[in-house]
């Protein structure tokens, strides 16, 4: 059986240096967005999804676990942050903390349950768990069911950063994204990340080498879920609402699609994929359900003919890991 990713190149110091250069270019490009006249709301939204996709990719690309329920972390953190900001009137930094802690707790519980099975069973379990949460949030009073939590105050972060100003909000979201991205980058290149990759390649062999693979997978799951939650908390400030769409299975599917388009198991792929998919939704917003059809077609095309994704193909061409 061939593995999901084409990433056979070792993380040599040179490869890490190349990746850092690309990272700096990406950071500079993103930092210059407010001066270019590009609609900042679009980029902020894409950044939140990019972080979500990167967190998802940590699990699939490096742990070989396809979660079909990552929307549950996005939605849970979103709801909890929104509730903390609106009802408890907490400042933004504490609001984010509440959401991230909620996602952390949720990922411990769901991780404990779902890593008991592998492969497609894992995917089905995560999907079922997120559907369970969807129904809970549909009925729970604090989420306001179909209406969602609307009109969330953005407030002043640390008492000084006025998040209702688009430019300030943009840089806060960007810093959050870059911090999350760097953390994932660090995890992938750590000894922990190397063990994770070995589990993806051949779990039996990793076990025979003495690694408790379940513990590694569990930790990867918790890290991924918590970071996905962080993305959900950031998104609350951008969208100023939290609704059921964020917990729905179609959202989980979109995250998978973003990562697939950009390249499973590539570092920068999920970011590119998120921008592509969000841009596509933006431009095709008037076409109703045809967007679903197009997304489905992209899925089919990527699986049949474009399994490396955009960044994967580029990396393959230049024989670099990106």
């Amino acid at each position, binding site marked *: *059986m*061939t*593995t*999901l990713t084409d990433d056979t190149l070792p993380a040599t110091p040179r490869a890490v240096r190349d990746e850092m250069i690309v990272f700096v270019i990406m950071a500079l490009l993103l930092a210059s967005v407010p001066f270019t006249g590009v609609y900042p709301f679009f980029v902020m939204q894409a950044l939140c999804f990019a972080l979500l996709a990167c967190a998802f990719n940590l699990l*699939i690309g490096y742990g070989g676990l*396809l979660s*079909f329920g990552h929307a549950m972390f996005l939605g849970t953190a979103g709801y909890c942050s929104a509730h903390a900001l609106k009802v408890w009137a907490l400042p933004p930094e504490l609001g984010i903390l509440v959401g991230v802690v909620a996602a952390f707790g949720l990922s411990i519980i769901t991780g404990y*349950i*779902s890593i*008991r*099975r*592998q*492969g*497609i*069973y894992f*995917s*089905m*379990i995560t*999907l*079922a*768990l997120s*559907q*369970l949460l969807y*129904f*809970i949030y*549909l*009925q729970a009073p604090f989420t306001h069911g179909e209406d969602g939590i609307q009109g969330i105050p953005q407030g002043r972060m640390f008492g000084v950063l006025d998040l209702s100003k688009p430019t300030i909000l943009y840089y806060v979201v960007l810093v959050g994204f870059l911090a999350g991205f760097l953390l994932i980058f660090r995890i992938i290149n750590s000894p922990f990340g190397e063990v994770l990759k070995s589990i993806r390649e051949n779990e039996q062999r990793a076990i025979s080498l003495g690694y408790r693979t379940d513990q590694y997978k569990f930790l990867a799951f918790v890290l991924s879920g918590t970071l996905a939650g962080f993305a959900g908390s950031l998104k609350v400030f951008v969208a100023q609402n939290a609704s059921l769409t964020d917990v729905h*299975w179609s959202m989980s*599917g979109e995250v*998978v699609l973003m990562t*697939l388009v950009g390249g499973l198991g590539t570092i920068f792929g999920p970011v590119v994929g998120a921008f592509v998919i969000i841009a596509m939704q933006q431009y095709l917003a008037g076409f*109703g*359900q*045809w*967007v*679903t*059809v197009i*997304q*489905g*077609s*992209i*899925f*089919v095309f*990527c*699986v*049949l003919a474009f*399994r490396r994704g955009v960044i994967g193909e580029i990396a393959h061409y230049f024989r670099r890991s990106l």
Partner: protein
Amino acid sequence: MTFRGTPKGPGAGSMQALYAQLLVGLINGSFYALLSLGLAVIFGMLNIINFAHGALYMMGAFVAYFLLNLGGINYWWALLLAPIIVGIFGMILERTMLKFLTGLDHLYGLLLTFGIALIVQGVFQNYFGSSGLPYAIPDQLKGGMNLGFMFLPIYRGWVVVFSLVVCLATWFLIEKTQLGAYLRAATENPTLVRAFGINVPRMITLTYGLGVGLAALAGVLSAPINQVRPLMGADLIIVVFAVVVIGGMGSIMGSIITGFALGVIEGLTKYFYPEASNTVVFVLMVLVLLVKPTGLTGRAA
């Protein structure tokens, strides 16, 4: 979870309502059994979890609707023709797409069929919106009978009995016939079975058609009860996934029994604690995973 209707009988008392919910549970259980059975058959041969199963179930209902409203072809013919038409559609999918996933990680099958599900559901949503289209119960199955302890609408009784017969027939086909023996052998070792001169690729295609046909059949059966909606299969398939996780895909009979049993449990929940009726199958899945991670009948995957 697909519908909440309770048949109104004469003097609907508390026990009446309980029996009614049990019947609703049995009907949903029939659909779970037919769908998880198809998933298990397909997984056995193709090593693919068919995410498009819900969309193909929906297509079955729509084909029945088209046959009736465009061609004037009645329910009984639809029961035969819809599974064949959707089965052929499935076989075309297998020949043109799924075939190329051989040798790749299982997860690609899930992603590809998810994409197919999005396309099919999206196309139907574009033309038919999200509301339901009515499909009349055939004349022969209208009305109900009084069983003394409850009022049984004939159509609902028919769905349960007919699904059970189809499930058992499928079990018989796979476990007890020569063809089934080839099938099981090809599941274990396709290369060896090919060496005996059996056309395994064709068998794979037919198996996919069979699994898809079962889904379409469930769709036709549900059309008069649940109405015909583009998203009728979208949420159902997730419940069926949970059913599959609970039951495991190792045994055909296991899928059938788990499907019916979970439907009944869901029906009982609807009576005793309706708030949890949407979630009970998922909660049970969690409990089973905690107690017996391989599922009730399954082998380790």
